[in-house]
């Protein structure tokens, strides 16, 4: 370092001497090279959506020093008015649609049905068969359980399989709006409705990864064991009118029995993954689900006592009519007993579906992802599907047990079909579940158990006693 300056001085001096001599020398400046046109900056804007117009990418340097436009957009509070108008529009549209389907849909369907058999009759006549055989076939199709039952089962099955697709999108939108975000916006024509479909396709195409330490068969079987009862449990749920896969007399018992099987699947997933976090999640889940079955079951005992039936359809029917002409005879409006059993059932249902205040089996910040840490692709999404199916089931049950099923909230609203009220109440309760999830922190394991055994269970017993007193007097 110290030697260098003395050496480097010489060339510097030489340059200084040359420089003034060189300056006046050039007569004309050298021709400038043609200026290369720089490509126009492409801003990272969404091409169509108005929410993204004028919102240039924050990553561009030009914007970095003058973030005014971005700033103003960001500091504006969300406009709830537009959202409220949109929501009212959607709800109104759905109501009108439901009424129209109820009024005209069935007649259209019957006309189609009759036309089908008229065409069949002509074909049969052309083939030389008698008209009676076609009429007999029609009568058979309309009365026989062999045609209608499979159709109903397929319909109900699709409700369960399609509903989670919608519910996941809905949950993502709700969570996004609670967190001042947009949520999915791109896939599909309306606010990213098809996002979940795209995600489902992605999950289907993904590889099923199995850890080396996994118990292969248990690991593979677990998602099916979780998902299968979730679907079966929907059998006695009525989606309005005759649309019920199997009207069982003991449907309440059946549903709880089916839902109880899923615990085995979760345990299998926890054990079979060969992962300690999964194991802990599985154990937590087993403890939690088995515990909360009890208050959940006892909470609806008053309802069963009042309705005098274990069938969902008859429990819902028992709540028709009003008090004083305007208060519907729903079980939630039975003083003290109704509210208490609803609260216990609600809390226990949230715990049964492993959702947030009670999501200790899959507690992300503690156990990574709990029992489904080691699952990928479609096997993971089966757990997901089961979770949402159970949430839907819990809400369907609550609207049937406590909110009068398909009975309208006010006496003048009979013209709107029952299934609309039923699904509407269910969706409102689903929203409640999602609201819980995105506002509450998670309880600790021991507190979850305390809440169940020391609070919910004693109160559910007391509640049964209250209901008994009610029925006595």
């Amino acid at each position, binding site marked *: 370092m110290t030697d260098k300056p003395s050496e480097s001085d010489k060339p510097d001096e030489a340059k200084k001497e040359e420089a003034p001599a060189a300056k006046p020398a050039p007569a004309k400046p050298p021709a400038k090279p043609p200026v290369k046109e720089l490509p126009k900056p492409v801003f990272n804007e969404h091409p169509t959506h108005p929410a993204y117009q004028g919102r240039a990418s924050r990553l561009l340097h030009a914007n*970095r*020093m003058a*973030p*005014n436009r*971005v*700033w103003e957009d*960001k*500091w504006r509070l969300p406009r709830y008015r537009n959202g409220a108008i949109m929501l009212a529009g959607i709800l109104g549209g759905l109501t009108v649609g439901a009424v129209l389907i109820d009024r005209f849909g069935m007649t259209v369907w019957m006309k189609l049905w009759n036309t089908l058999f008229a065409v069949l009759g002509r074909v049969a006549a052309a083939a030389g068969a008698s008209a009676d055989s076609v009429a007999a076939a029609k009568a058979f199709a309309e009365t026989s359980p062999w045609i209608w039952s499979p159709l109903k089962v397929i319909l109900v099955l699709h409700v369960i399989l399609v509903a989670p697709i919608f519910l996941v999108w809905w949950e993502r939108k709700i*969570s996004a709006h*609670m*967190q*001042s*975000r947009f949520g999915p916006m791109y896939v599909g024509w309306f606010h990213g409705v098809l996002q979940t479909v795209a995600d489902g396709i992605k999950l289907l195409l993904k590889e099923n990864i199995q850890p080396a330490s996994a118990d292969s068969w248990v690991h593979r079987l677990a998602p099916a064991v979780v998902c299968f009862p979730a679907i079966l449990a929907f059998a006695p749920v009525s989606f309005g009118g005759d649309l019920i896969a199997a009207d069982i007399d003991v449907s309440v018992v059946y549903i709880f029995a089916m839902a109880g099987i899923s615990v085995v699947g979760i345990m299998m997933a926890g054990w079979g993954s060969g992962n*300690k*976090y999964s194991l*802990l999640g599985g154990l937590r889940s087993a403890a939690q689900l088995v515990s909360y079955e009890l208050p959940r079951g006892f909470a609806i005992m008053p309802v069963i006592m009042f309705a005098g039936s274990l069938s969902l359809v008859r429990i819902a029917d028992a709540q028709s009519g009003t008090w004083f002409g305007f208060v519907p005879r729903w079980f939630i409006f039975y003083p003290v007993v109704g509210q208490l059993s609803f609260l216990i059932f609600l809390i226990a249902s949230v715990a049964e579906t492993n959702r*947030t*205040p009670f*999501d*200790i089996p899959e*507690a*992300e*910040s*503690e*156990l*990574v992802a709990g029992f489904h840490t080691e699952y990928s692709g479609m096997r993971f999404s089966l757990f997901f599907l089961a979770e949402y199916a159970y949430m839907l089931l819990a809400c369907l049950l609550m609207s049937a047990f406590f909110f009068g099923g398909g009975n309208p909230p006010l006496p003048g609203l009979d013209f709107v079909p029952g299934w609309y009220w039923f699904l509407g109440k269910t969706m409102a309760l689903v929203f409640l579940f999602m609201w819980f999830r*995105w*506002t*509450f*922190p*998670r*309880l*600790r*394991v*021991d*507190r979850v158990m305390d809440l169940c055994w020391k609070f919910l269970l004693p109160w559910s017993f007391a509640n049964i006693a209250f209901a008994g007193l009610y029925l006595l007097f």
Partner: protein
Amino acid sequence: MTETAADNKPKLKSDQMFINLGPQHPSTHGVLRIGLTIEGEIIVNAVPDVGYLHRGTEKLAEIRGYHHCVVLSDRWDYLNAMGNNMVFCMAAEKLMGVEVPERAQQLRVLMLELNRIASHLLFFGTYGIDIGAFTAFLHAFREREMVLDLFEMVCGARMTYNYIRLGGVMKELPKEWLDRCREFVPFFKKRLAEYDDLLSFNPIFLDRTKTVGAVGGKEALAWGWSGPNLRASGVPYDMRKFQPYSSYEKFDFEIPVGKDGSCWDRYYCRVREMHESLKIVEQVLGGLPEGPILGKGVAKVPKAPPGETYAAIEGARGDLGIHLVSDGNMSPYRLHVKAPSFINLQILQEMLVGQKISDVVAILGSIDIVLGEVDR
């Protein structure tokens, strides 16, 4: 290091389980690894293991010029980079005898407090996630974004600012900056009130955090704690009051102090500190003096006279200090950082024993470490 987590493995009894919490885990806030021996859900032994983010910045400083060391300092505690710049510049200025003009001092205070808000906001959000409340995180990030925008306007960077330079600050405030900042203060005040509704006094949150991780004042001092953690244990020690620097003595603010040093106290101390920081920001905005922003006498390649010095500030995580030794050359002879995160972390091995797995996350989150500062 006396004992690594791996050493414990063969000693396990049949009814105990060894779990690696980290280095890749959603809630270790970086690459911390804790070797947990558990019996069911109860922790029998916990061994924190650090060093996964070691970049050797202290050694690197020995071959960098003083201006370049400021850049290195951004990388220690990347959430409180202004504080790091500040403490290094303070030490170097002390050695070189550089006077910082009044305006630069107050700009430094402004930036430090805004950065404290940003850092505590990140703590607020991630602590919510640790406890299981996700929404608080995004709400906190929305406000943090605004602070980062302010920083971006003033120095072009959102994380590694390098704004505080030897002898003053890098740049004069842009034209609209003060208006933006004045807009931000009342907006954020409203939000802070919302945070209390959303998380601070949620019964589940209280239940999770008030009952665990209590550290008494004496114990906290014995483990060398500082910053909000120490104040939560009831010791009102704050470098800004105790040993004012950069004209902190001119501003009026309180020291939030906790009662029993539980996780909730540590959490709420930080929330209240955001209020206090806002107060300071308001005061600075009210009477920002005019004048130069860079002191005289800082060479392009500065050389500090031989000697050593120690400078400390109240960082977002505690008492952040620098021990700087110079041999008269253009780079420091030795630079040592007294990193509050590293010191606060050590108590974990004692605190975690006997708690549940869920509490590990609650306690670790409440100590609010930044692994960049732990490992440097």
